[in-house]
């Protein structure tokens, strides 16, 4: 019988585990006997894809084509990228979704596709270890992941051919592994500092029910940041020959050296690095543990506020203590982090289980339970990490589902129109705790149309938010008098559309079958020619809709596509088509609007005018 698996899709490494015949969770060896698969994917110019240690080894020499820490890019839009995330990669900036240009410029891939490569390897290894393809999977995500990041993770699972039974929060998974192992009862905190993310969850364990009371975190804080801070100092101190701004390959090497040094300092008071780097340079430096701690202290201290808030949200006020603190994530091996946790929670943290594998083990236990239709001694009640709201007139956020609500959850609220005769209402869905929509994460925006034209404040629109057991949101809006209704699975602004996921699924199959490449070459050449012809005529007719600066990226990509069509690399044609498609989307929309406007000139302008953000109906629905 196919067995369900649990996957820890981590920033620096990923693991897969299952529950054996004797009901014990076990990690599966994936990469040369180790259960840890580095979350590294290398794209070769020849179309090859390598995952794991072999990819990581290529990172220093081929930094741009080797994607590390892709988790930091999941569910993010181009505007969300922080300089440290951008790192050394080349990005295809044209579309709304972040894309990395790899394989020496021949392919552009989304973070979802990169993650799917990692998941595919885990699925394959699990299949080999279990003598058959896995039956279903639980994939863990940081508790603090927002809706877009969760959806991206679920899409990656699908793309890798996994049946994703559930997304599970990492600290909750760790608590499951711990709680079932130790038969614990009481109030527990899980402090999870991984490669790139920090989570804290407060849970109540009672009679096999793991009830998350509150969660907090930071999706941009982890061991990676420690390494970057250390690497900077090492480069300043021991780069030979010094001078000249280090290039991407050199930075990669320095970060890798910093990581080894930091790990060495877990057990020692002083350590040194002497490593050859790219560009014929060398890194030679010593670092003491005290110096290391000074460097990373500000980062470690950033975990304090989320912990205190989670404790307060869980109702663990001053003077009360949790019964235990569990450490998860490789970065919690750092002595400074352990001391920090001890001081913060007033007790010695538990670390009996390996902080690297505990999340995967918990995911396997949950996968097994789901697969069996539940287990008497295990039920997880998790929460939504960030409030979900809607933007009101004036840009203020009205929260609809509060953070730390147990999921699945739902809430409805009524709103009214702002202007006389308003027939449309823009529903801008946001996630976060800040008061203003522009400070929150924008998840989706849609317009409810067909509101009967009434004086301001008379129409009633009911907005319902429903969050499922994976923490993913669905929004529906309904005009109360007429029953006009719109429902959308919130497809995040920066996410992939259903069609894109379908296309990628097909493509991933295409990529596996090299022998059909000839067919695609023919088909895509035809498609590319059609695309070029249509754009050429569009630019001739409506070129004035674009400024010269806006026209430039389109022209560039058209030239690139023409060149690709002349060659015989079908993947290159496809990549250029995708890129051109994204770059010209705005133009296509403007053309569409222009034509609609011309067609409607003089007609029913009031229909087009009345669209504004919602306004609350006083009194608030309880």
């Amino acid at each position: 019988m196919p067995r369900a698996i649990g996957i820890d899709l981590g920033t620096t490494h990923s693991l897969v585990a299952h529950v054996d015949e004797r009901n014990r969770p076990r990690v599966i060896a994936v990469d040369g006997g180790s259960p840890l698969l580095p979350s590294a994917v290398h794209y070769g110019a020849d179309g090859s894809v390598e995952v794991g240690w072999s990819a990581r080894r290529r990172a220093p020499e081929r930094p741009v084509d080797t994607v590390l820490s892709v988790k930091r890019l999941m569910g993010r839009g181009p505007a969300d990228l922080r300089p440290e995330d951008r790192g050394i990669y080349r990005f295809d900036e044209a579309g709304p979704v972040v894309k990395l240009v790899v394989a020496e410029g021949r392919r552009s891939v989304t973070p979802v596709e990169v993650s799917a490569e990692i998941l595919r390897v885990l699925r394959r290894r699990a299949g080999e270890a279990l003598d058959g393809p896995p039956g279903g999977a639980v994939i863990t995500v940081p508790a603090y992941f927002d809706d877009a990041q969760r959806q991206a993770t679920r899409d990656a699972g699908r793309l890798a051919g996994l049946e994703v039974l559930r997304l599970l929060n990492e600290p909750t998974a760790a608590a499951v592994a711990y709680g079932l192992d130790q038969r614990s009862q009481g109030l527990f905190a899980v402090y999870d500092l991984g490669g790139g993310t920090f989570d804290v969850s407060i849970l109540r364990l009672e009679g096999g029910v793991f009830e998350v009371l509150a969660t907090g975190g930071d999706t941009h804080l982890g061991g990676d940041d420690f390494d970057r801070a250390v690497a900077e100092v090492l480069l300043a101190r021991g780069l030979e020959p010094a001078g000249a701004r280090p290039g991407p390959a050199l930075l990669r090497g320095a970060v890798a050296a910093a990581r080894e040094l930091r790990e060495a300092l877990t057990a020692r008071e002083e350590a040194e690095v002497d490593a050859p780097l790219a560009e014929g340079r060398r890194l030679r430096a010593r670092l003491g543990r005290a110096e290391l701690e000074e460097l990373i202290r500000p980062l470690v201290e950033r975990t304090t506020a989320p912990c205190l808030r989670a404790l307060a949200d869980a109702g663990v006020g001053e003077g009360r203590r949790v019964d235990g603190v569990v450490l998860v994530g490789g970065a919690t091996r750092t002595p400074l982090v352990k001391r920090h946790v001890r001081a913060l929670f007033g007790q010695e943290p538990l670390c009996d289980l390996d902080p690297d594998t505990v999340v995967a083990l918990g995911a396997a236990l949950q996968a097994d339970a789901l697969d069996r239709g539940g287990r008497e001694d295990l039920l997880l009640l998790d929460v939504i990490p960030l409030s979900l709201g809607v933007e009101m007139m004036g840009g203020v956020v009205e929260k609809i589902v509060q953070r730390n609500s147990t999921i699945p959850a739902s809430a409805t609220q009524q709103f009214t129109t702002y202007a006389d005769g308003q027939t449309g209402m823009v529903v801008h869905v946001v996630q976060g705790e800040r008061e203003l929509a522009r400070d929150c994460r924008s998840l989706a925006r849609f317009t409810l149309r067909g509101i009967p034209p009434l004086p301001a404040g008379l129409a009633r629109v009911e907005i319902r938010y429903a969050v499922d057991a994976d923490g993913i949101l669905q929004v529906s809006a309904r005009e109360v008098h007429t029953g006009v209704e719109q429902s959308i699975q919130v497809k995040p602004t920066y996410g992939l559309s259903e069609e894109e996921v379908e296309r990628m699924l097909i493509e991933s199959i295409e990529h596996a079958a090299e022998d059909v490449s000839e067919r695609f070459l023919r088909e895509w050449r035809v498609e590319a020619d059609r695309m070029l012809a249509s754009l050429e005529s569009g630019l001739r007719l409506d070129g004035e809709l674009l400024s010269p600066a806006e026209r430039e990226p389109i022209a560039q990509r058209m030239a690139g596509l023409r060149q690709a069509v002349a060659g015989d690399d079908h993947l290159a044609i496809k990549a250029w088509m995708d890129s051109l498609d994204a770059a010209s989307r705005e133009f296509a929309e403007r053309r569409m609007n222009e034509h609609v406007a011309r067609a409607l000139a003089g007609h029913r302008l009031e229909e087009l005018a009345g669209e504004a953000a919602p306004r609350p109906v006083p009194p608030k629905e309880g």
Partner: protein
Amino acid sequence: MDCWSCQSEVGSREAFCAACGAIQPPDPSEDHFSLLGMPRRYALDPAELERRFRDLSRRLHPDRFARAAPRERRLSLERATRLNDAHRVLRDSRRRAEYLLRLAGADALAGGGAADPAFLEEQLALREALAEARGAGDGEAGLRLAAEARARLGRAEQEIAALFAEQELGRERLAEIARRLARARFDEQLAAEAEGGPAPAGARGGP
């Protein structure tokens, strides 16, 4: 009502069919109290509420239905959502009070507090005091305002409990409760602002 799966007779509020065990659709008219099997009143035993919530979760949660037919998965999601929504309202004393008012058809009274001129003036004065404390960078004055608001909140809770304990809950009493709730909402927000952070999620008078 007939079970959708085996057509046996099922009570409209039964979660499962006695004959075939299939999960049943929720009854939209069922209120939060009866859903959790608690008496419909303000005073409740928190431990009992939690026990019932856990027991029901064990039976209804989507995790029990991950491998079930799509229809059962959907029904479990609907039932678990309702259960969680009910639990969230009932475990919080203020939300519970607001919900009782709504069940009594007195939710329109909830805005009543704002119409009370004395309360309006008090609000303005307190807001001004907070703005002043902030403007002057006087953290102590801010914390004092927060502590006072918290003290009022504690008193309001007792008063609301006492009002709900009365035999007859006439319109006048309900209006009285609504006024106190409006004040409590204001005090909660004031305290949170004065303490300088966002209100604790569970405590805010949300939807």
